[in-house]
């Protein structure tokens, strides 16, 4: 069985799966879509009350949560849509222009 982690842009055709089938779940995690980002959210941890409003609003699951606390953005998957900044009741998220992570 060929796993997604073993396939990359150097894999010869003989080692790819028929029809591009993927034989495991959750492989989007491996795929860097953060490079599409045009604006970037910045997380201000000191202003965050961990109310968790931003987490379900994020269309890309790019806000990780551990032990009841949100962590910094997952920039490998964040597209910079800015919804998190809109829904945040505190000054804990600000958007900056450009895709680069400061």
């Amino acid at each position, binding site marked *: 069985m060929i796993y997604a982690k073993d396939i990359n*842009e150097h894999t*010869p*055709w003989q080692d*790819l799966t*028929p*029809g591009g089938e*993927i*034989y*495991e779940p959750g*492989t989007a995690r491996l795929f860097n879509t953060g490079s599409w980002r045009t604006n970037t959210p910045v997380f201000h941890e000191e202003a965050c009350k961990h109310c968790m409003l931003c987490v379900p609003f994020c269309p890309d699951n790019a806000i990780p949560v551990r032990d009841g606390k949100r962590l910094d953005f997952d920039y490998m998957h964040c597209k910079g849509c800015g919804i998190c900044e809109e829904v945040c009741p505190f000054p804990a998220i600000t958007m900056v222009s450009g895709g680069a992570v400061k």
Partner: protein
Amino acid sequence: MSHRLSGNEAVAYAMKQINPDVMGAFPITPSTEIPEYFAQYVANGEVNTEYVAVESEHSSMSVCIAAQAAGARAVCATSSCGLALMYELLYVAASCRLPITLACVNRALSGPININHDYSDSMGGRDAGWIQIYAENNQEAYDNFIMAMPIGEHPGVRLPVMTCMDGFITSHAVENIELLETDVVRRFIGEYNPEHYLLKKENPLAVGPYDLSPYYMEHKVLQAEAMKVARTRILEVATKFEKISGRSYGLFEEYRMEDAELALVLMGSTAGTAKAAVNKLREDGVKAGLVKIRVFRPFPGEELVRALAGTRAVAVMDKSEGFSGGGGPLFAETRSALYDLKERPYMIDIVYGLGGRDVKVEDIEKVFGRLADIAMTGEIGPLYTHMGQRSKEERA
């Protein structure tokens, strides 16, 4: 078992014997009878197929794609505009490598609207990545459908198969037919056990993911290689089929080709008419022969070279226009295949029978007459002509 069945009933009966898991069903002339007969089998409890009546052919093929991806065996039947409405899904089925079986009852594709036979429908889908097998008569339509699954489902192939028969001429005419016993068919087909399928819970699977330029080309090469494997597999399955049926099939049928100098290349029911013409000409001492293409995808180019190598003049007879401005699709393939031959025969294309225009033994004899002239004079005259239309000019 000897019976008398129409081509449609023969294919529906083959489906009953196979007892597929799912049928995506939508009617269109002249294939309507296939889902119609099959609905009776479902209603009578003779099969346990999930019969999904849908609202269009786009949906019937979508049902088949989803079912096959889930791990089921899916079948379908359609014609003409119905096949055209499936066009996108034909590509999806083939590129997802889902071995669906489709009975295509060939009918002219609009317009102007016409319900009778030619190959303009399936020829439009010839680049979709489906295996295409054409029948001359009811017996072949039945046999081809039974061979389709062992061909398409083979792990090295995994491609959908379209078994084609001529609308009305084959689908509606009742002929004598030899049917296999159902248990023999079931053993021949076997269980469908794909390695990966959506309902296999211990192995989550994604089918048809987005495929960007770094990967798409590689997947197309895999698909192209599968089509090459299919050629061998078709012959293996034919050998096994001969053991249970006594009927022998190749990629094409050579009729009186051993010493033939003048030959036709054509498909489907016209072969019966052409065989009668060949026999007649042979009685007159003309070395006439016929190649009836059975498998159009994959195209048996190399094998055709061997079959036609000894001929002096060949007429390809296309029962679909193609509108290339230079001949029909069968001509393009056949002529291209013979390019590598050092001593090539003269070759012309005759487009005939569009929208069900009849072709008679005398018409075929006229084509052989033209070939005889070409072989004698070395002048091919017009490369590509139509036959059977009313015209102010007189030409075979």
